[in-house]
Structures are given as structure tokens and as C-alpha cells.
């Protein structure tokens, strides 16, 4: 069990101090990764995307790889669109901040498409 004091505090670009999830804060090392990148541990981030409904398990290999491939890029696009983030397909700072934030365990894939609210 990770004790509360072990949570990492990161100062963001806007100088706001944020406390990030100790479980997922390692994902901040993937900041600015994009298609073609190969970063050790990226398979863990792919598991996160799989868990919340954005990425299917690989068909050809037994596990996720550490390569930012086209399938993962599609998942990032989908995640950014679903969570109202700028849709870049890259792991930019806003996307990484959202990924490491604590969240509800209900999969985003458990729900139907978004319905627009008429203003």
C-alpha cells in the first residue's frame, strides 16, 4: 500500500501545485511522446487505456509493447475526444494531467456516445 505521504507533488506550467496519483504518476514520463516513440514502461500506460475502454488487447503479441504505435495513437485520439481535451494524438501536458488524475473506476466504454447538451 502506498502511504499518502509518498504522493508526488508536481508544479505545473501554470505554477499551480497539484498532487498526483501515486499509482499513475509515473505516466508523466511519457509527456510529449507521439507515434513512433519507444519508451520503457509504455505498456503500462496501454493497460490503463485498455482498462478504461480505449484500447483492445493485442492480437499478435501476448502483451502490450512499449512502442507508441498507430493503434495506441487511435486510442489517444479517442481518449482526448471523449474527455474534452485538445485532440492532438500526442501525450501533451493536458492529456497526461488528465491521465494521472484520480478518477472513477467505471469504464468510459461502458457508456453510449456523447449526447450534446442544447444551450
Amino acid at each position, binding site marked *: 500500500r502506498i502511504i499518502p505521504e509518498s504522493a508526488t507533488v508536481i508544479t505545473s506550467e501554470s505554477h499551480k501545485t497539484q*498532487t498526483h496519483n501515486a499509482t499513475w504518476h509515473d505516466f508523466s514520463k511519457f509527456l510529449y511522446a507521439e507515434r513512433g516513440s519507444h519508451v520503457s514502461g509504455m505498456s503500462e500506460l496501454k493497460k490503463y487505456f485498455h482498462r478504461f475502454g480505449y484500447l483492445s488487447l493485442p492480437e499478435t503479441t501476448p502483451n502490450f509493447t512499449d512502442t507508441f504505435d498507430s493503434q495506441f495513437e487511435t486510442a489517444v485520439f479517442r481518449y482526448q475526444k471523449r474527455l474534452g481535451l485538445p485532440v492532438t494524438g500526442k501525450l501533451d501536458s493536458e492529456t497526461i494531467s488528465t491521465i494521472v488524475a484520480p*478518477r472513477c*473506476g*467505471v469504464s468510459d466504454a461502458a457508456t453510449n456516445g456523447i449526447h450534446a*447538451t*442544447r444551450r
Partner: protein
Amino acid sequence: YAYFNGKPRWTRGAPMTLTYAFSPYNMIDRVSVPEIRAVFKRAFSRWASVIPVSFQETPQYDKADITIGFYLGDHGDGEPFDGVLGVLAHAFSPQNGRFHLDAAEMWSVDVEREESRVAVDLESVATHEIGHVLGLGHSSVKEAVMYPSLSPRRKKVDLKIDDVAGVQSLYGSNPNFSFSSLLQSQNSFNA
């Protein structure tokens, strides 16, 4: 707003009353039971104010429509909790009624007075999960209660237009609710 696949909702005769109960065995020490009960009462009443559904606490856990409990790690539903932060809670779609919170979190009923950097506002999470219990999925509107993430020490309990429109499309509107008053309160907040 979004629904669960198949758009499940509670179906009871009108007027609809759903009962909720706390697990007698799976609670936490950090927040007292009366405080937890008060937090959930407020959270349920927010949803009840916009739809023609009321919520009533019952001591009969086995017979309640909605069952609430705090659990650690693997608690038997295939969705184990992960300790401090990470996943905070989860709830099931209608008409299952199970509502689980991660007992490892630093749950708080007053985040402004909390010293812990990882304190999580219980009322905000309760309000969000009740949305799931009622049939709402995750929203892409960041300000909405049904947005999936919540930063530590952040309080987000007021239903936004997106939340209200979503739940009213499932249950209809509470006759005492008016969108104009919601818009007014949101505008004054934004101002």
C-alpha cells in the same frame, strides 16, 4: 452526457422512491457514520431536486435498492481498488444498485480544513457515483459532476446543465425544478 449501453434506468411506479443503505460491515473510521449519512443525504437530494425520484435511507441493507460500502483492494466484483488515489470509487448501472468506495482513500467531509494533500471530497464522489446508479455514464464536459476525474482536495457537487439534461432524459423533470434557476446560479458562479 452519456448513458450506459442499453440505456438502463430504474422503473418503479410513480412517485418513484429508491431506498439506500450503508453496509453494516464495510464502513471507514476516518469519517463518522453520522457525517457519512449527512453527506449522502445531501448528494441524493441534489439528484432528487431535478427528477421525480426520491431517495430514502433504510436500515434494511439486504432489501435496499442501493447498497453503499467502503472496500479495500479485491472485494469480489472483479474491479479491485488500488489504494490511495487512482480509482476512487465505482458504481453499477440500474437496477443493480451496488455503490463501492475505496476505503484506502483519505475521505474528507471538509477538504478546506484538511491538511492531507491527498484528501478526497466524499460528497463530490458520492454525487458522481449516484449519477451512475441512476444510469448516467461519463460526461466529456469537464465542469460536469459526471466527468470521470476529480483532483484531490477539489469539491464538485453542484449539478451542471449537462448532468441535469442527462438524468432528466432518463426520468423526466421534477415539477419543482426550473432550468432558469440553474442557469442563474451557474451564471452568478461564473461571474
